[in-house]
């Protein structure tokens, strides 16, 4: 029996998260008398989940190599500000491209320091977290960028978070597309095999001819560009952004990844689990809002969940690695 469970967990690390999703969905639906499952709430929940998931996917890829990226909150803020700041001037198409380029740039800075200079990723990305949050505040200096009516009619704006297709926010479609692409890259392609190998044992991967430096650099660029996209998608949905945009999101992104079965030590991740992790966190958030609980309590709940997820993770790892 235990061997069977171990086998199941080994092959499907997101199994626990799926169970959790079903359990909390049922609980929340019953406690709120069905309003948690209303179309309106599910629509808003899916948009919120999508933007968090996109950021968390990048985080998961970084975690796969045994690193961490805590700058994603600031990067999403820069992405949002660039998108909404430039869209009225150069159009939303160029605005979006600029936002993504900033994501590449910040991710690249992180990557150079971590991969080429060998500085711990926690330190580097803590630095860029503050640096770009500061820049975000400085650029807006108390003002906020809002999407004009012209911008709101533009195709790109609607296609990237500002509009819906059949009632579903376009951000959700992007999240699912990115999930499919990353799922294929990580689990079905040589690059993914090497990525996971580095997280498992960097020295062994290097001895097998894997270009450890290049892959470590690459994951930070991917994380940067996804965080910027996440910020742009969310900004298009909300319609305005100020200097505090994205603040604190890095914690939710890390929590979603951990909750979804990504091991912080590296080498084992689940992207489907990460999506579900984002759903759980956003689900709890919306549940607390429906109950009328002050939103500040959400932070406390996230903290608790991360600690519990870490504990469960340890137990499961032990179970899996027993011969």
């Amino acid at each position: 029996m235990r061997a069977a469970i171990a086998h199941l967990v080994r092959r499907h690390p997101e199994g626990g998260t799926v169970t959790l999703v079903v359990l909390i969905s049922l609980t929340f639906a019953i406690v709120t008398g069905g309003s948690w499952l209303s179309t309106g709430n599910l629509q808003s929940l899916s948009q919120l989940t999508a933007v968090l998931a996109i950021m968390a996917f990048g985080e998961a890829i970084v975690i796969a190599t045994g690193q961490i990226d805590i700058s994603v909150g600031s990067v999403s803020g820069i992405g949002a500000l660039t998108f909404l700041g430039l869209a009225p001037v150069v159009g939303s198409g160029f605005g979006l491209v600029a936002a993504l380029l900033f994501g590449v740039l910040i991710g690249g800075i992180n990557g150079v320091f971590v991969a080429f200079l060998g500085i711990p990723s926690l330190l580097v990305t803590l630095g860029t977290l503050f640096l770009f949050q500061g820049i975000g505040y400085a650029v807006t200096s108390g003002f906020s960028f809002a999407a004009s009516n012209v911008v709101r009619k533009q195709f790109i704006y609607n296609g990237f978070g500002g509009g819906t297709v059949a009632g579903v926010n376009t951000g959700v479609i992007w999240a699912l597309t990115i999930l499919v692409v990353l799922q294929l890259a990580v689990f079905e392609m040589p690059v993914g095999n090497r990525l996971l190998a580095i997280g498992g044992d960097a020295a062994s991967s290097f001895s097998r001819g894997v270009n450890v430096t290049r892959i470590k650099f690459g994951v930070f660029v991917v994380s940067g560009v996804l965080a910027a996209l996440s910020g742009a998608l969310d900004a298009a949905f909300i319609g305005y952004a100020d200097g505090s945009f994205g603040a604190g999101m890095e914690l939710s992104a890390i929590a979603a990844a951990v909750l979804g079965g990504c091991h912080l030590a590296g080498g084992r991740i689940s992207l489907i689990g990460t999506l579900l992790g984002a759903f759980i966190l956003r689900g709890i958030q919306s549940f607390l809002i429906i109950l009328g609980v002050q939103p500040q309590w959400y932070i406390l709940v996230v903290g608790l969940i991360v600690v519990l997820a870490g504990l469960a993770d340890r137990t499961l790892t032990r179970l899996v690695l027993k011969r």
Partner: protein
Amino acid sequence: MITGSDGQSRAAGSPKKPLISIKNVGLSYGNFQALTDVSVDFYQGELVGLVGDNGAGKTTLIRIISGIIPPTSGEVYFDGERIIKFHPKKAIDLGLECIQQAIGLCDNLSVGRNYFLGREPVRRILGLPFLDKKKIREASAKVVHDFGLRDSVDVDDEIALLSGGEKQTFKIARAVTFRNRVIIMDEPTNHLSVRERTRVNELAVQLKQQGLLVIYITHDIFQIHRIADRIVILENGRKVTDVPRDAMSAEALEGIIRDGSRTSTKEPKVS
């Protein structure tokens, strides 16, 4: 320095050019001199025992040969071509496979994925490289079977589930089944049972007979003296002995190592 009677020792009856040639190689970590002016040639179809006490520089030398670290001085030639850029990928592409004690396998990957790590077989779909999982599974399952690992080993299982001996056997199997020209074995029989050890040594001899160059690193002179064609002894980062097996007895060689080790210093860990 003690050398063979012909001055330049080599495998019996092979008046050919060396496959790997190390010329005056030195390596220092800051002030610490791990290797000093080491020159040694390795020939195809030869089983060379690279022997020395802990910290003698054996592992450092093979790390240079397998491209993990570049030497700070001297030259390395492979098949007559001077190696300028040192990278494991380059060594692997040249047909050099190194079986190391502590590294080589990623615990989090499946047996099959470890087998092909760094040279994954792909199927192209719309020009994109996708892992050929069928080939990965079949090829690694064959190796697991041919090298006598447990029948219960599933190539989709993480390699962490194998025992130490099984992992070592698997690393050797991987090195052997890819077409290679040089196999370097770094203390290959550590952590192995007596029977597994005999098997590994038989394998080393078989590889040599197939025409490969086998460099076998050990500190057990008696074990290597039985199977090697030539013994090279390192001490404090210098080559002190390079003789054909028949030129000296195992006891005499052991004496050289024992006397030398009194002055040896510990080699720092390379990260």
